[in-house]
C-alpha cells in the first residue's frame, strides 16, 4: 500500500481497540519470567557450549603476539576463536570498527578472542589464561583538544555539515540583545539491562542466531556480510529484547563470535557480552561541545540563531547531530548550523535514544533560558513568542501539526509555573527550590514496514512481522491494530515478532516503530479484509468487520467462516511517499521540572516532573506514557549523573559497568505526570500516529538544568550537573 496522500476516514478511526490504555499483551509472560530472551532459548540446552569474550587491553595499536597454550589446555576448553584463525571476515554496513580485532586494534575492549568451553565457568577461567602482548600506538582521546582542528562532518541523515539562511553574522552582530555560550555533554552509555547476547547454531551452511536486536533485516544482512554468507542462509530471531535505546540497532560481537565459535566447535554456542566489557566494546552516545549564539530584539524576537557542534568518532565516521532541532524549532530570519567532527580512538559513537536532539536540546534549551533572562522575559513566554508554524528555512513548508505553544501553556498552568520565583529566592527548609522548563522536540520519521496476517477458521488473527518490541509496546499496539481492523477482540489476535523469516518491518529505532509498523499491519489487514469478504461472497467495500462477524446489510457471517476451507493469508507493506517532504512532521512537548538543592551540600533532588506532549494519535496511552516517563528518567540521568569518564591517556571509558556508570534509581525519580494533547495527524500514516519514544527524553535534561539555576542562581553549562561544579556558587548560608 502506497501512502502518498493524507489518510481519510478508515476503520482505525472507530477507536474501539486502538487508543485504549490496554495492558501489554505479553505482560503475563514478562512478569512471570516466562518470556524468553536471547540467552535463554532452550532448543540447544543439551548440546550448547559457552563463549567468553576477551577484550583488548589497549585502545590503539597491534597485537604483537598471542599465546593460547595455557588457555587451550584449561579444563573444558573446546576452541578459541581469534582473528588469526577465524578466516576472512567482512564488516557489516552498519559497523565502524570490526567486531573481532587483531592484529590491528581499533579501540579498547575490542574483542580479540572468544574462548569456548563446556561451561560458563570453564570458559571464563580459560579466558584469563589468554596471554596477549600488545604494541600500543598513540591515539586521540580528548574531544576538547580537537576543537578548532576538527573537519566538516559527513552528511548525517540528510543534514549537511553547514546550513545557512539569511545573514547570520551580520544579524547577530547587530542584535541589541546577544547570547554567546558554550555547552558540553559527555559520552553516554545505553546501559540497557539485558547485555548483548546470542546463541548461534549451524546446520550445514545455514546459520540460526537467537539474539537481542532492534533491526532484524539490517542485522541479518550484516551477519551474512561479516561471515561471507548469502543473506538467505542467515536466520535471526529476537522475540524479546531486554532494552536497546539504539545500542542494539546493529550487529555486535556477541552474534558474530557465537557464530564463529559454533562453527569451530560444531556445537551451538552462546555468548553474552560481560557487563564490564560492554561500555568500551559497544557504541555509545558521543560527547559534544556546542556553541550557541542567539540574537534578539529587546522585545524578545529572535533575529539570529547559530548552533555549532563538535563531536568525535572512530575514523571521524559519524557526527552527533546536535544541531538538527535548531533548524526547525524557533522562528528567526538569520540562521546557521555547523557540525564538525574529529577522529577519536575511543569505541565507536553511534545512535542512542534521540540521537542529535537529546544532546542538542540539552544545550539549546538552556541557551533559551539564558536568553529569556537577559530579555527579562518569562522563558515560557519567550518560547511562545518565537514559535513558527512553518519550516523556518523554507517558509512554504508548514508543519503538519505544531502544538508547542499549547503544550507550554497547558504545562505552565498544570505545574503551577506562576509560583516560580527569581533565582535563589525560594526555600523549603534546607532546600533551595527551583522550577525549570524546556521545549521537547523530535522529528517524526517513517519507514516502510511489511506484515503478514493469517485468519483461522476459529476466527483467530495471527500477525507475523520482523518488528521488534524493545519495551516499546509493539506487541500490544500491533494486536490492537489487527483487532480494530478485523473486528475481533484483542484476545483473538496472536502477534509474532522478531524473526527474519517474517516480512521486513520498520524495526525499532528513531521513534519510527509504532506508527510505521502498525501502518504495515493496517495494510496487510486491508488485504485480509478483501480476501475474507470475497471468500464470503460479499462486496469488500460494503463489508463491516465487527464483533467477530462480517456483515453486509442483513447478511452476517462469523469471521472464521471465511477460513473454513483453509487459512486465509494476506501480506502487504506500507510504503511512504513524499508527504514528509511537502510538510514537516515533528513531535512536540513541554517539560516542567521542580528540583530541590541542598543549601549546604549542593545535592540535587528532583521533586516533580511533568511532560505535555503532542505527538499525533496515541495508540495506547498506557504504553505511550511509559515510553515518555522512561525518556524523562533517562533525561534526568543525563542532567545529573550520567557520564562515561574518558581516560585521555590510555583511551577508554573508566567507569565501564553499572556501579561506575550511574543511572537513575527508584530513589532519584519522583512521580512523573504526562499529558497527551488530543491530536491526529493524517499526514503520517493511516494510523495518524507519530513517535513518542524519543520525544520524552528531548529537553528534559535542560529543564532540570534550568530548575537548578532557578533554585541556586548558579548556571552550569557542562553536563552532568554534579555538585562540585556549583557548590562554590551557592548562596551564602544564613
Amino acid at each position, binding site marked *: 500500500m502506497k501512502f502518498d496522500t493524507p489518510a481519510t476516514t478508515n476503520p482505525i478511526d472507530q477507536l474501539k481497540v486502538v487508543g485504549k490504555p490496554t495492558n501489554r499483551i505479553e505482560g503475563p509472560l514478562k512478569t512471570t519470567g516466562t518470556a524468553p530472551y536471547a540467552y535463554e532459548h532452550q532448543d540447544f540446552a543439551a548440546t550448547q557450549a559457552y563463549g567468553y569474550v576477551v577484550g583488548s587491553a589497549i585502545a590503539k595499536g597491534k597485537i604483537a603476539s598471542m599465546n593460547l597454550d595455557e588457555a587451550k589446555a584449561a579444563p573444558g576448553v573446546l576452541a578459541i576463536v581469534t582473528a588469526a584463525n577465524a578466516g576472512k571476515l567482512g564488516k557489516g554496513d552498519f559497523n565502524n570498527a570490526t567486531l573481532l580485532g587483531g592484529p590491528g586494534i581499533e579501540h579498547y575492549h575490542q574483542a580479540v578472542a572468544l574462548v569456548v568451553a563446556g561451561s560458563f565457568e570453564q570458559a571464563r577461567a580459560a579466558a584469563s589464561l589468554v596471554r596477549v602482548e600488545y604494541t600500543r600506538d598513540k591515539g586521540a582521546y580528548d574531544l576538547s583538544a580537537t576543537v578548532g582542528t576538527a573537519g566538516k562532518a559527513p552528511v548525517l541523515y540528510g543534514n549537511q555539515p553547514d546550513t545557512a539562511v539569511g545573514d547570520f553574522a551580520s544579524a547577530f552582530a547587530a542584535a541589541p540583545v546577544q547570547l554567546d555560550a558554550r555547552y558540553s555533554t559527555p559520552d553516554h552509555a545505553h546501559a540497557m539491562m539485558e547485555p548483548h547476547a546470542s546463541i548461534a547454531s549451524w546446520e550445514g551452511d545455514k546459520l540460526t542466531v537467537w539474539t537481542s536486536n532492534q533491526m532484524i533485516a539490517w542485522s541479518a544482512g550484516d551477519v551474512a556480510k561479516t561471515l561471507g554468507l548469502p543473506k538467505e542462509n542467515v536466520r535471526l530471531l529476537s522475540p524479546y529484547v531486554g532494552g536497546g535505546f539504539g545500542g542494539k540497532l546493529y550487529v555486535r560481537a556477541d552474534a558474530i563470535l557465537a557464530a564463529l565459535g559454533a562453527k569451530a566447535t560444531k556445537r551451538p554456542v552462546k555468548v553474552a557480552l560481560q557487563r564490564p566489557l560492554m561500555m568500551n566494546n559497544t557504541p555509545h552516545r558521543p560527547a559534544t561541545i556546542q556553541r550557541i549564539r542567539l540574537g534578539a530584539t529587546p522585545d524578545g524576537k529572535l533575529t539570529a540563531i547559530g548552533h555549532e557542534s563538535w563531536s568525535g568518532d572512530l575514523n571521524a565516521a559519524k557526527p552527533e547531530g546536535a544541531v538538527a532541532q535548531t533548524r526547525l524549532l524557533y522562528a528567526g530570519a538569520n540562521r546557521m548550523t555547523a557540525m564538525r567532527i574529529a577522529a577519536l580512538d575511543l569505541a565507536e559513537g553511534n545512535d542512542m535514544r534521540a540521537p542529535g536532539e537529546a544532546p542538542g536540546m540539552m544545550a539549546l534549551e538552556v541557551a533559551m533560558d539564558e536568553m529569556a533572562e537577559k530579555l527579562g522575559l518569562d522563558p515560557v513566554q519567550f518560547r511562545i513568542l518565537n514559535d513558527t508554524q512553518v519550516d523556518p528555512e523554507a517558509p512554504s513548508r508548514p508543519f503538519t501539526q505544531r502544538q508547542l505553544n499549547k503544550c507550554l501553556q497547558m504545562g505552565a498552568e498544570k505545574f503551577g509555573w506562576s509560583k516560580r520565583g527569581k533565582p535563589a529566592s525560594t526555600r523549603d527548609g534546607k532546600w533551595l527550590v527551583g522550577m525549570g522548563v524546556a521545549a521537547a522536540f523530535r522529528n517524526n520519521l517513517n519507514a516502510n514496514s511489511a506484515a503478514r496476517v493469517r485468519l483461522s477458521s476459529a476466527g483467530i488473527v495471527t500477525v507475523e512481522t520482523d518488528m521488534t518490541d524493545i519495551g516499546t509496546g509493539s506487541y500490544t499496539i500491533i494486536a490492537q491494530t489487527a483487532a480494530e481492523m478485523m473486528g475481533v477482540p484483542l484476545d483473538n489476535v496472536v502477534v509474532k515478532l522478531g524473526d527474519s523469516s517474517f516480512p521486513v518491518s520498520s524495526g525499532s529505532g528513531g521513534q519510527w516503530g509504532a506508527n510505521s509498523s502498525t501502518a504495515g499491519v493496517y495494510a496487510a489487514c486491508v488485504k485480509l479484509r478483501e480476501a475474507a469478504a470475497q471468500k464470503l461472497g460479499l462486496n469488500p467495500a460494503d463489508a463491516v468487520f465487527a464483533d467477530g462477524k462480517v456483515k453486509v446489510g442483513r447478511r452476517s457471517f462469523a469471521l472464521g467462516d471465511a477460513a473454513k476451507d483453509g487459512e486465509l493469508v494476506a501480506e502487504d507493506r506500507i510504503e511512504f511517499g513524499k508527504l514528509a517532504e511537502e510538510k514537516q512532521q515533528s513531535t512536540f512537548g513541554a517539560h516542567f521540572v521542580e528540583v530541590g538543592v541542598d543549601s549546604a551540600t549542593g545535592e540535587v533532588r528532583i521533586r516533580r516532573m511533568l511532560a505535555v506532549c503532542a505527538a499525533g494519535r496515541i495508540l495506547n496511552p498506557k504504553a505511550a506514557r511509559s515510553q515518555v516517563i522512561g525518556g524523562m528518567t533517562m533525561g534526568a540521568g543525563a542532567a545529573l549523573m550520567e557520564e562515561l569518564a574518558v581516560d585521555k591517556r590510555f583511551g577508554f571509558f573508566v567507569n565501564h559497568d553499572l556501579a561506575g556508570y550511574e543511572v537513575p534509581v*527508584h530513589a532519584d*525519580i519522583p512521580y512523573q505526570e504526562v499529558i497527551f494533547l488530543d491530536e491526529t495527524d493524517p499526514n503520517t500514516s493511516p494510523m495518524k500516529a507519530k513517535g513518542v519514544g524519543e520525544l520524552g527524553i528531548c529537553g528534559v535534561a535542560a529543564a532540570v538544568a534550568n530548575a537548578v539555576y532557578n533554585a541556586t542562581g548558579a548556571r552550569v553549562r557542562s553536563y552532568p550537573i554534579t555538585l562540585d561544579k556549583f557548590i562554590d556558587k551557592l548562596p551564602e548560608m544564613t
Partner: protein
Amino acid sequence: MQTPEDHELSRRGVLVGGAASVAAVTLVPTATPAGAASAPAVPPTAEVAFKVNGTAHSLELDTRVSLLDALREHLHLTGTKKGCDHGQCGACTVIVDGRRINSCLALAVMHDGDEITTIEGLGTPDRMHAMQEAFVVHDGYQCGYCTPGQICSAVAVLDEIKAGIPSHVTADLTLAPAVTNMEIRERMSGNICRCGAYPNIVAAISDVAGVKA
C-alpha cells in the same frame, strides 16, 4: 582480558603512558601463577541440595557456579535474569529463606539446604501472584528484563516493612516503618530499570500494599 594488572594502569602505568604513549605492553595475569601445571584436569565439584519453588533439587556443580547460573543454566529457570553478574543491577534478585539476595553474588554451594523462591515460584501466566498482576495493570515494566528482579524485591520489601526492618529513610527507628512512597523507593533502589518504569513500579507495590502511591 580484564586482569588485576589492567587496573594497575594506575601509578606505574600512568607514568609510563604519560611519558611515552608508544610503548610495548605485556599483560600477565596473576590469577593462576603456575598456569596449566597447577590447574586440575577436572574442576572440583560439590553436591548441593536445595529447594527451589518448593521442589527439591540435588545438583553436582562446579564449585564456581553462582546461584544465578545454577538456576538459569542447570535448572533452566531463566526467569531470574543476568544483567551485570556483579551485584550492581538487581535483575537476579531471588528470595532465599524469606530474604532477597542478588543471586549472582552467591555461589550455589553456599545454599545447601536453603529454600529459594524465584519469579517462577511466585506465579504463572495463568495464576499470577498479586504483585505480578499489579505490575501488569500499572505497566510497571517495559522491556521486561529487570522485571522478575523488581517483583521478587517488591514482594520481599513489603515483608521487610511488615517485619519492622528499618531502612535508610526510616525517620524513627523506635517506630514500625510504614509503607510510604519514600520507603518503597529507597528499598527498591538496588533494582535498576533502565526503561524508567519507576513510578509505575511504585504504584504497583503501593497497590498491593493497599496504600496510595
